[in-house]
């Protein structure tokens, strides 16, 4: 369970939000809303532990994420604005390296399978810098398929994706939620994801 207590975030001398409280249980989806500059990305980065909150705390399974960082990171996959893939490496190499960095060994078949599912079959050996914006995003999304983490934090996951890929990603998120996963995402698009519980937090309010 992820719990956010009295969270306050300050950037420079500008306070983005304060007194933010919510909890997220297994199988729940949190849709984070807010206008541009409301602090959505800052909140997501704080939830990942990349940013230190000015006040308040984020708790994972009842423990502050700063005191149990390794355990929390083991349960977390974060997809930010940047794809976090290397342009010089191919899609397969990127996924192989990112999985062995997180301590999982994957067979090449498993990775090829994930790339096929995400619609990148035939492009797996090209350096990712020659791929289009949307295809690069798909390589990043393939990480979600291969990860065995519980909590997904996705910052604008639908940008640059075509209709087919948006549907694929929605299905992926639903499957994850049905398997007792948790998802936090921001998007300006209308999302219809079949999920047990859907929560919303509006930062502009």
């Amino acid at each position: 369970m992820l719990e956010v207590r009295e969270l306050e975030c300050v950037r420079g001398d500008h306070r983005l939000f304060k007194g933010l409280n919510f909890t997220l249980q297994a199988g729940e989806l949190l849709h984070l809303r807010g206008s541009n500059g409301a602090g959505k990305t800052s909140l997501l980065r704080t939830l990942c532990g990349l940013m230190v909150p000015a006040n308040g705390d984020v708790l994972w399974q009842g423990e502050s994420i700063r005191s149990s960082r390794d355990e929390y990171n083991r349960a977390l996959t974060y997809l930010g604005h940047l794809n976090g893939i290397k342009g010089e490496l191919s899609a397969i190499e990127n996924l192989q390296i990112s999985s062995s960095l997180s301590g999982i060994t994957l067979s090449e078949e498993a990775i090829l399978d994930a790339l096929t599912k995400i619609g990148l079959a035939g492009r797996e050996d090209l350096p990712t810098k020659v791929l289009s914006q949307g295809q690069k995003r798909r390589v990043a999304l393939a990480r979600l398929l291969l990860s065995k983490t519980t909590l997904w934090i996705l910052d604008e996951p639908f940008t640059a994706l075509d209709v087919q890929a948006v549907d694929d990603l929605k299905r992926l998120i639903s499957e994850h939620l049905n398997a007792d996963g948790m998802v936090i995402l921001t998007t300006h698009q209308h999302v219809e994801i079949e999920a047990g519980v859907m929560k919303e937090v509006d930062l502009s309010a």
Partner: protein
Amino acid sequence: MNEGSLFRAWRAMLVRDMLLAMRRKADVLTTLFFFLIVVSLFPLGVGPEIETLRQIAPGVIWVAALLAAMLSLGRLFSDDYDDGTLEQILLLPHSLSMMVLSKVFAHWLLSGLPLVVFSPLLGMQLGLDGDAIILLMITLALGTPALSLIGAVGAGLTLGLRGGGVLVSLLVLPLYIPILIFGAGAVESAASGLGSEAHLSILGAFFIVALVVTPISTAAALRISLD
């Protein structure tokens, strides 16, 4: 299982950085050629008297090694910062200091080790004799890892700043001074018959202290830079 996965991740990080460098050979070669060219300029500027050259050789080679090490520091974390992979490294379920250590080791293999390997060539060019050249290689082998380790702290702190390249030199070069003094000093004092053991011991001590302290400080610097 925990230690096994840390070791796997450590190795994966090393392999990753070496693979990236192989895809971008120009970066590695730039550092090496910079080193070779800077040292080769001295005989042209100072004049060809072999006695003068022999006297200044250790200092010249060491200063050139410092500058070459500086040159490659900029890219240590900045590429990963720009494409978002550094964020992902911070979110790995392993100690960030160990990941930093792996990256710094890769950095040394790519920028420090070539300097050690090619230093005999420059030593001969400046008229050093066989013993002095071997000693020069030993000091560089002990000193350049410390340069990479200390430089990593500066590179982490200046990440994402405008003009970070110049700032990192201002931050790191003063910290390189002791290594320069004892590195070049070892060769000079051996040449004057004083023996170099004391210098080498101090150089080794610098390396060990840097090995223990700097990965932790670099990890902290990276967390601050990404906040």
